[in-house]
């Protein structure tokens, strides 16, 4: 009798159950021994009793290959919170791949060794070839919170790499975090200078206009004066990774008051960079009055006899990289646009010879408010500036409209905050702290979740910025109340009111009005789909739960949602998920705080999901009751096939016929088909469990029935490089020869011996299959492997046989890897789960791939082939596994919303079971998207150094985008393509060396190709 397993599969995952022994390829169980047959055709078949579908498929999607680039355990599953700089380099990550980076906090050598091991573990991510040779400790210390920090300097062949400094951080004796700026291992061979340091000094000296005055002996002695010091370094002008120069770094003091830093190319003598590093200048403070007549202490900077609105007093300020006053790094900088705008934008320093600022109150307000907001993010969220990395905060005042009139607005343009001077409705916008915090909030959003600025994600963007405004200026729930001077349009005197989104208005005709509930949501096209309008719904939800749990707690949830959960395309329902999970992380799943968040979202009509329309290419979920059909392996039980509920608590035996392979079921669950050990085909009517032979020819090894039941595909029981397809309507068989496509047009290779696992797609046009291949590698050695392909066997448009075109799921499998037993997601026909085996490492995994995005995830490390199968909602994957005693069981594991990664621990589900098929008994429209044709493109050169060319084979159509993604899935380049263009150039000179993917998509297609950056 069947029973449910109660233990967690994870127990045997990590407690020493051995993986398959070397060379015992688990895929061997799929091999066939019968070489050939005299059969050349099969007999016609009688129809099977399929319950008619509500809607038959009429068209379909096109499948295409993706690179095999798993989001491996080493990267995405272990290292998290990866942050990148503009060059696409990782500048922060946390997590630990191995425990051997443990250390003794009291032993500096132990700390240093652990840090190097940590860097070695991530060296592929940071493009450092040999961390132990390329990093040296600068200092290490333990702080008051039990954390250990070690700072390291980058070197190359013993020469300092200027600007290359990183931290490794540890806790409880384990290194867990990395951050810093560095350069990929330099590609520079000749490290012998062509000019001496003295010649470099002569070159720099000639460039310095300041008089050189030899100090007196006393001055020299007192000030430890050296006219010049020099150091040979590896320098990257403007920090470009690809521009590597052997350089003399000179510190020159022409007299006792002045100091200059010069960087002179040690090969050519070219002055690469220089700046005035004179120490007599520096941060200053001033007392100044803002737009509201309030006097503040503001931070300014003195240099060259002038004072500037540059706040260099914060911990983020980087004196070494700053070129003051024109290029401060890590400062708060306020600039005067002098009533210019657009293409005529002119920007000037605010400067003063006596550090007096009372004539520029708008600048005082902007400068002070930027400082307040900076301190809020640093003090409350430990966020160091807008970009989290101490980036300069820029405010631009006196921006005008393009017709020269005064701007009644303030905005964030992606790099800076801009403030207009108001007019009839608003006073100068810089005068409100919440306005400044709102705009800086946009910057934080851009650098965290980067919510797309249209539709619901745009409304979330606006709301997150409003929350920023009201958390910094936290005495009320209003926005802009300090700058409204005319209540004609805002009768309450508030631009927005998070506690009352209607804000004195009654409809969308009122500028002050926002919806307070999802039922009031604006659905028009204005305002990018209502980004400033529908933000009221999220605002109200935030207000509601913050009022219950306090602002102090709510702001932690808000910030964590932005940094850890929300993504670019997040919608309202994602916001609920984000805020609930953030609350759970901080306060616990059953906490008052988490409940308050849930209640607040529910009260504004943002539910727990469900009921929404599926995305493009998605299927509606089968509305029927779901069950699991499984094969019993208990030799003492005469029953072979069971149907159970999905909790595996109630089993019904439906057959005692042995099965040769995994059964196949139509989408509405009315009929199952399978092959018997005698190689004959049977079907079972699942409404009454009647069982009949579909074919009594003893010639079959596997069968799959199309989702609508109109066709079957079979694999013969001999080594036959074909898939046979029978159409019940046409009452005809068709034989499709399997081959391996190549990347040379018109060239295919005949190294497919036979297929084994087969499954129809949801259109009834394609069959996804695995096949056994034998060939010679480039060294002339015989190799064999299993691969997954997709063959088009039917054409819905013409309602006839398909052209047999084959696409491999993975372009370029590693030589030692086999993949097989593919199975489609129940609702996302571009996602497949499959078995993976690496013969080098003996690693056997259940994996899944998204054929649209190219993402590949590891779901479960297995000991047997998993034959995975998705649940009705795609939130669970079931698969073959073994328990601690080696008994065959069906396991299950919850999935993340991306359907290709796990979200929890695996556990046993059905004892003595295998080949589970999760199905449901409802009717649904199987597919309804328009026919698509695939657009091909070629990238060259590959590998590439500076420019990558993308040549399309045909017109790319409209709304096409192209992006470059690095190996950890981070988009490092994105652009819109022009309609009708066929050739596109991408500047990749700033990208670090490594493997990347080009992703191209338009409204209908999503194609990925791999390239190498040299």
């Amino acid at each position, binding site marked *: 009798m069947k029973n449910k397993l109660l233990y967690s599969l994870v127990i045997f995952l990590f407690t020493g159950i051995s993986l398959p022994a070397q060379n015992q390829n688990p895929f061997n169980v799929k091999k066939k021994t019968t070489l050939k047959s005299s059969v050349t055709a099969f007999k016609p078949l009688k129809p099977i009793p399929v319950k008619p579908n509500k809607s038959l498929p009429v068209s379909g999607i096109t499948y295409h290959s993706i690179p095999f680039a798993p989001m491996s355990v080493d990267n995405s599953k272990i290292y998290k919170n990866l942050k990148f700089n503009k060059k696409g380099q990782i500048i922060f990550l946390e997590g630990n791949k191995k425990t051997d980076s443990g250390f003794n906090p009291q032993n500096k050598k132990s700390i240093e060794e652990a840090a190097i091991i940590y860097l070695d573990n991530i060296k592929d991510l940071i493009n450092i070839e040999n961390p132990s040779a390329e990093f040296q400790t600068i200092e290490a210390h333990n702080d008051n919170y039990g954390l250990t920090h070690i700072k390291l300097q980058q070197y190359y062949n013993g020469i300092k790499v200027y600007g290359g400094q990183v931290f490794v951080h540890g806790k409880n004796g384990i290194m867990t975090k990395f951050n810093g700026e560095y350069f990929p291992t330099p590609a520079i061979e000749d490290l012998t200078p062509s000019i001496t340091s003295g010649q470099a000094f002569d070159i720099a000296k000639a460039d310095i206009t300041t008089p050189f005055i030899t100090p007196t002996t006393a001055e020299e002695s007192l000030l430890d004066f050296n006219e010049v010091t020099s150091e040979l370094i590896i320098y990257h002008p403007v920090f470009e990774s690809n521009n590597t120069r052997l350089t003399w770094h000179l510190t020159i003091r022409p007299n006792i008051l002045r100091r200059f830093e010069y960087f002179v190319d040690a090969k050519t003598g070219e002055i690469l960079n220089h700046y005035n590093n004179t120490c007599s200048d520096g941060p200053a403070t001033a007392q100044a009055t803002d737009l509201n007549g309030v006097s503040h202490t503001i931070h300014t900077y003195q240099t060259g006899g002038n004072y500037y609105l540059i706040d260099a007093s914060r911990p983020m300020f980087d004196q070494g990289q700053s070129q003051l006053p024109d290029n401060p790094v890590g400062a708060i900088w306020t600039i005067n646009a002098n009533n210019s705008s657009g293409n005529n934008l002119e920007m000037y320093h605010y400067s003063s010879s006596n550090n007096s600022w009372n004539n520029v109150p708008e600048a005082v307000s902007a400068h002070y408010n930027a400082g307040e907001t900076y301190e809020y993010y640093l003090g409350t969220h430990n966020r160091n500036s807008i970009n989290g990395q101490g980036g300069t905060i820029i405010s631009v005042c006196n921006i005008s409209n393009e017709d020269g009139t005064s701007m009644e607005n303030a905005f964030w*343009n*992606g790099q800076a905050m801009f403030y207009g001077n108001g007019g009839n409705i608003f006073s100068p916008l810089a005068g409100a702290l919440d306005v400044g915090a709102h705009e800086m909030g946009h910057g934080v959003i851009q650098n965290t979740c980067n919510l797309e*600025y249209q539709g619901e994600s745009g409304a979330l963007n606006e709301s997150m910025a409003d929350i920023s405004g009201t958390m910094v200026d936290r005495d009320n729930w209003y926005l802009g109340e300090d700058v409204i001077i005319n209540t004609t349009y805002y009768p309450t005197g508030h631009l927005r009111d998070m506690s009352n989104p209607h804000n004195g208005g009654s409809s969308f005709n009122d500028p002050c009005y926002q919806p307070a509930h999802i039922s009031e949501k604006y659905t028009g096209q204005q*305002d990018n789909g209502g980004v400033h309008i529908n933000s009221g719904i999220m605002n109200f939800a935030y207000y509601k739960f913050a009022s219950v749990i306090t602002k102090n707690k709510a702001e932690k949830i808000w910030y964590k949602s932005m940094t850890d959960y929300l993504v670019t395309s997040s919608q309202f329902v994602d916001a609920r998920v984000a805020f609930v999970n953030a609350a759970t992380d901080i306060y616990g799943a059953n906490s008052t705080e988490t409940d308050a968040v849930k209640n607040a979202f529910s009260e504004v009509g943002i539910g727990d999901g469900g009921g929404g329309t599926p995305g493009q290419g998605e299927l509606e979920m089968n509305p029927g009751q779901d069950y699991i059909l499984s094969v019993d392996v208990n030799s003492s039980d005469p029953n072979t096939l069971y149907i159970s509920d999905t909790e595996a608590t109630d089993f019904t035996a439906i057959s005692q016929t042995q099965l040769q392979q995994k059964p196949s079921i139509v989408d509405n669950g009315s009929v199952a088909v399978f092959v018997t050990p005698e190689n004959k085909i049977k079907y079972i009517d699942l409404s009454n469990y009647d069982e009949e032979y579909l074919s009594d020819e003893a010639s079959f090894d596997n069968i799959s029935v199309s989702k609508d039941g109109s066709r079957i595909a079979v694999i013969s029981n001999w080594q036959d490089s074909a898939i046979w397809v029978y159409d019940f309507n046409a009452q005809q068989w068709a034989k499709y020869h399997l081959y391996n496509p190549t990347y040379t047009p018109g060239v295919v290779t005949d190294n497919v011996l036979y297929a084994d696992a087969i499954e129809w797609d949801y259109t009834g046009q394609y069959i996804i299959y695995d096949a056994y291949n034998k060939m010679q590698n480039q060294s002339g050695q015989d190799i064999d492997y299993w691969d997954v392909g997709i063959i088009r066997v039917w054409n819905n448009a013409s309602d006839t046989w398909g052209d047999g075109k084959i696409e491999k799921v993975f372009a370029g499998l590693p030589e030692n890897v086999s993949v097989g037993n593919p199975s489609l997601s129940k609702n996302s026909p571009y996602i497949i789960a499959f078995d993976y085996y690496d013969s080098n490492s003996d690693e056997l995994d259940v994996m899944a791939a998204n054929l649209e995005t190219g993402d590949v995830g590891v779901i479960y490390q297995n000991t047997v082939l998993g034959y995975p199968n998705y649940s009705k909602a795609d939130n669970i994957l079931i698969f073959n596994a073994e328990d601690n005693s080696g008994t065959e069981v069906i396991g299950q594991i919850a999935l993340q919303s991306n359907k290709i990664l796990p979200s929890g621990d695996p556990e046993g589900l059905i004892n003595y079971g295998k080949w589970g098929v999760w199905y449901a008994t409802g009717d649904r429209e199987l597919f309804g998207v328009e026919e698509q044709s695939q657009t091909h493109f070629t990238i060259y050169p590959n590998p590439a150094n500076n420019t990558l060319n993308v040549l399309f084979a045909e017109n790319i159509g409209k709304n096409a985008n192209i992006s470059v993604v690095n190996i950890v899935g981070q988009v490092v380049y*994105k*652009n*819109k393509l022009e309609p*009708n263009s066929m050739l596109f150039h991408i500047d990749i000179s700033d990208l670090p060396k490594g493997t990347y993917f080009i992703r191209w998509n338009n409204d209908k297609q999503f194609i990925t190709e791999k390239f190498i950056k040299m």
Partner: protein
Amino acid sequence: MNKILPSILAVMLLFGCTTSQKLQKFSKNSLVFGSGGGITGATTEYILHYDGTVEKTNSLTKETSPVTKIAAKNSKTLFKEFLNDGLDTLKFSSPGNMSYFVGYKNDSVTQKILWGGDVAPPEKAKTFYDKLIQIINNL
């Protein structure tokens, strides 16, 4: 004051290209251009009519007011250029916190090329926008 040229100017310099050839009667249509967003969400839209009159609307005040009138032949040239550049059929939308747009509308259709976000607009759209802005700059 010391004039400076920080890198934030670069965001104002936008790139792209498009090609399309089409001419048609356009006399009842208007070219629209302007910007909007920011903390207020307000949009200022300029409307260039075929006869050369230019109006300005504000989404906050909902007021429409005359701005100027350019020579009809100059207006026709702009309309012709708009069509020759294929801007009537070019679909591009990359909004930012402050977005800029150029497009056309008639009684039944409004089409706008919108930018201000991460992705630079087609160069021809930005160039044409700049030409239109010159009209109001020279007032």
